[in-house]
């Protein structure tokens, strides 16, 4: 590169100071060959700057961005991430109270739904022997009416096999005309009994169909109860 070429290149690269630019322009004015070389080079630079610029096609931009996008995770990867991703639960008192209310209402509702179903569940049958024991029915009883005419008595009771010969257990009630009556339930069987007048006088039932000795020289009334 000679001095003239160097000047041209520095002029094109805008590396000349003002004095050098003046000297260069005077030189090209005087030297037609230098002027021609400079103009040709200047033309190349000028034309290069206005060469048409191509615009990237939308398809190119779209494909390029798509190639950089992260791959869509599979169903399993999304599930795994959802299960294993650590989470932080943020809460406040109002939120916790609301959640507690919802929980209480839900549990109450659940019981309301479940209760009738419990009734409908079939319970395994209890063994027949047990049932027979627990539900053992009482033997049938016969109501027996005892009557004693004793107008002068203040109280009348009856003592016998059915009440352990206790004169205070079964009292007779007085009716009009000095008739004393009592109705007592008795199991079928044979009983001996006596009336006790005013708590001290023991007498056999004068209306009894049968009497039996008591072993002490007195007679007990005998009552046969049958269904």
């Amino acid at each position, binding site marked *: 590169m000679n001095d003239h070429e160097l000047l041209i290149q520095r002029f094109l690269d805008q590396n000349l100071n003002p004095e050098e630019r003046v000297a260069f322009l005077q030189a090209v004015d005087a030297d037609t060959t230098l002027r021609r070389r400079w103009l040709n*080079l200047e033309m*190349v630079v000028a034309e290069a700057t206005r*060469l048409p610029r*191509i615009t990237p096609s939308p398809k190119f931009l779209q494909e390029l*961005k798509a190639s950089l996008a992260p791959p869509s995770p599979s169903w399993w990867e999304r599930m795994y991430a959802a299960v294993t991703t650590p989470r932080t639960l943020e809460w406040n008192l109002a939120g916790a109270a609301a959640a507690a209310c919802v929980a209480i209402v839900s549990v109450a509702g659940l019981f309301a739904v479940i209760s009738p179903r419990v009734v409908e569940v079939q319970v395994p049958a209890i063994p027949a022997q047990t049932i027979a024991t627990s539900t053992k029915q009482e033997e049938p009883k016969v109501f027996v009416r005892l009557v004693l005419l004793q107008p002068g008595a203040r109280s009348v009771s009856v003592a016998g096999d059915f009440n352990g010969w206790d004169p205070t257990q079964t009292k007779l009630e007085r009716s009009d005309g000095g008739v004393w009556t009592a109705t007592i339930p008795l199991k079928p069987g044979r009983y001996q009994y006596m009336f006790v007048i005013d708590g001290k006088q023991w007498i056999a039932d004068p209306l009894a169909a049968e009497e039996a000795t008591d072993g002490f020289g007195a007679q007990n009334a005998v009552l046969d109860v049958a269904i």
Partner: protein
Amino acid sequence: MPLDQQAVSEDAQLVARSLKQDHEAFGQLIDRHAPAIVNLAYRMVGNRAEAEDLAQESFLTAFKALSTFRADSKFSTWLYRIAANKCKDWLRTKRPGQGPYDLDADEVLDSHVAEHRTPEILLSQQQVAQELEQAIQRLPPLYREAFVLKHIEGLSYEEMEEILSVNGDTLKMRVYKGRLQLSRELASLNLSR
């Protein structure tokens, strides 16, 4: 803030977001820089489809290597460097038969340029542009690269040094030889008509 500095700042923010797996941010970087990268590749390889392929490779490489990008540098400079290397790799492997041009051998053409003629006089503007594009494609890759960055992309020698990792004087010499070669080709075109 000057426009250029604002653009650099916006690029830095988009890079930071991209590093946090914000793919939309890198999409914006693509929108901002794809035209320049596609044009550089087009001027280097002379084919639009190949240029877009090279631009795509450049962006993919940049995306993968984004963590190595130094924030004290301009993203555009870093991207230009990746794209320039992609283009040279392509020229090296896809066009193995194309050797460097001997610029000095054509110097004699310069003396035949008619004094009163210029390319503009004899060729229409469209013809000049078409001939210039073809002439650029005939430049040796290293000269082509320097000329395109300087006069088509409008970069400074300082930026070119950073992109190409080549000394500034060497770059000025490459641009000079590129300009000279193109000037001779256009002048010879006028002589032949």
